[in-house]
């Protein structure tokens, strides 16, 4: 049976699905320890040419360490990193064909914008005219023409970010490493810069590896995301896979909001699984090979996939009764918390999109309501 596509995007760029594609970077069983703490633990990951890859995780999950190992700043305890088939072991940072944009930007304060961007080119020993031409090209690329003579302390945060980007791109690295590239920008600027970075990456056809703790940033920009947990990769996939098909509860809860109903498998009928939970008998349509009645399992449900009804819905689909506990009006949608009936009284988050400016059926605190969702809406999580 042909299943429906995930999310609402049709992607044409997917070299990871092509067994004949040549990878650009391969992390192969990489481990890094700091004293007693294992920052990166036996981790393997492959990046493809032209890919925008995001390492996503909470602070301390090892994402920055992984990137710094590729840049050459952290020696490996075991494993290896291949770039273009070449083992990077023993190659110092200044000889690696990677460049990094630092979180603090790390612009040299005693040099002008021109000299900052020219720094890497001068190390290559390029002739003076070639350097001037490349710097001008980079300044045009980041739309900072006319800023060549400025000092870093005469620039705004957004301008500093662009100079740092231009400096890192000037040497045409095989992989550009971005450490929280938008972390220091305010919200409005962050969104603009986000799309500019994506355009730039597509235009130059470069491979980007980005470290971020911000899931919106990762989801919006990356072709693929590696969600990291304590030195390991919990899941690698396109944003819609991570969101709609999380591999486990950690990923489900780290990326986006989610409601989890714990229960016991009541019956398995092909791909239709029935789950006995505190919220009643739940039905979901998610392939679960090897699942047997009596096993523990959970249903994970994104808030935007639930409907709020004022009367009990007809038919055999999923439904649960409760009352409205809390309402948060956020503009584009309203986040409603519904307290389910019963002893457990689980709170369920529901996102109501505000598609119209006015409504004839407003909701209020303490209203009695019914929740309803499609059998395909839920994600089956084992355990």
């Amino acid at each position: 049976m042909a299943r429906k596509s995930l999310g609402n995007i049709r992607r044409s760029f997917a070299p990871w699905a092509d067994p004949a594609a040549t990878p650009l970077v391969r992390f192969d069983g990489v481990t890094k320890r700091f004293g007693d703490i294992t920052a990166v633990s036996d981790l393997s990951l492959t990046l493809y040419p032209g890919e925008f890859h995001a390492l996503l995780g909470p602070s301390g999950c090892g994402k920055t360490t992984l990137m710094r190992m590729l840049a050459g700043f952290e020696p490996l305890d075991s494993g290896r990193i291949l770039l273009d088939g070449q083992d990077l072991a023993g190659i110092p940072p200044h000889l690696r064909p990677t460049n990094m944009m630092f979180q603090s930007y790390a612009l040299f304060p005693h040099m002008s914008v021109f000299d900052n961007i020219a720094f890497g080119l001068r190390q290559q020993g390029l002739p003076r005219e070639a350097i001037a031409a490349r710097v001008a090209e980079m300044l045009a690329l980041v739309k900072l023409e006319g800023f060549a003579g400025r000092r870093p302390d005469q620039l705004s945060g957004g301008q500093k970010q662009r100079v740092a980007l231009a400096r890192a791109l000037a040497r045409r690295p095989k992989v550009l490493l971005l450490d929280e590239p938008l972390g220091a920008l305010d919200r409005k600027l962050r969104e603009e810069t986000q799309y500019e970075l994506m355009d730039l990456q597509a235009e130059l056809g470069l491979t980007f590896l980005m470290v971020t703790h911000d899931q919106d940033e990762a989801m919006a920009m990356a072709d693929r995301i590696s969600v990291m947990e304590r030195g390991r990769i919990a899941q690698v996939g396109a944003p819609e896979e991570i969101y709609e098909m999380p591999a486990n509860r950690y990923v489900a809860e780290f990326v986006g909001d989610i409601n989890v109903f714990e229960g016991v498998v009541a019956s398995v009928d092909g791909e239709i699984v029935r789950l006995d939970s505190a919220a009643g008998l739940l039905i979901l349509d998610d392939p679960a090979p090897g699942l047997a009645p009596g096993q523990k399992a959970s249903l994970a449900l994104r808030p935007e996939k639930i409907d709020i009804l004022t009367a009990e819905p007809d038919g055999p689909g999923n439904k649960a009764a409760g009352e409205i506990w809390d309402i948060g009006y956020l503009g584009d949608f309203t986040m409603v918390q519904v307290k389910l009936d019963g002893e457990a009284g689980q709170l369920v988050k529901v996102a109501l999109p505000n598609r119209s400016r006015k409504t004839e059926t407003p909701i209020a605190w303490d209203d009695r309501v019914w929740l309803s969702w499609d059998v395909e809406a839920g994600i089956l999580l084992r355990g």
Partner: protein
Amino acid sequence: MNRLRAPHLLALVFGIAFLYLPILVLVLYSFNASRLVTVWGGFSTRWYAALLQNQALLDAAWLSLKVALVSASLATILGLLSALALARSGRFAGRTLFAGMIAAPLVMPEVITGLALLLLFVGMDAERGFWTVTIAHVTLTACFATIVIQSRLVMLDRSLEEAAQDLGATPLRVFFAITLPMIAPAILAGWLLAFTLSLDDLVLASFTSGPGSTTLPMRIYSSVRLGVTPEINAASTLLITLVATVVVLASLLIKRDALART
């Protein structure tokens, strides 16, 4: 800014007077026309003119200046190296001991250091003079230079150096293109501190100098034992002016550097 209330103002005036009144008196009397040190005979700069005729004092001043220049330079180089070792080499074996040894001259009584150095030089049968005084001064001032430079190095954003390396600079290039320019104000401040410490040192110089190598503080001290003359006041005033200028310069450097980083 809050206005000071009377008791605070009084305390401040008293404190400043306690610290600086003696110096003020010395400076005032250097402009005294009278030969008698304690009797005011009108304003005059004759003692400054007489100073220029006093060859022994001028020789001593020149020697002090040479010692200060050479010892401050040596101390700054040593200070830079030890600061780099302390701030950049991680936790090497013996680091704590090394840090303690660097800081020891700060608290070591100068008499002990001087005596120890004297015994060493005598034991080595070294001819005492310019170099022995200079070496003695380096042992004292290198720790000050180290501390000033180290504190700047610790504050320096490591990602600057990493960025330079990432952009293809060898570690040596990184040091000269990034690290050195960034810590230059601290290096200069360390040098200035070492310079003033050497210039006004009496104890170490007394132990380690030989015949014919009398520094300015030694000359002033020995003259005073024969009776204070307004000429000495004039010489001291010049010394104070020089030292004060250098110290103010050093603290301005450190302060400006700190401001630039915020």
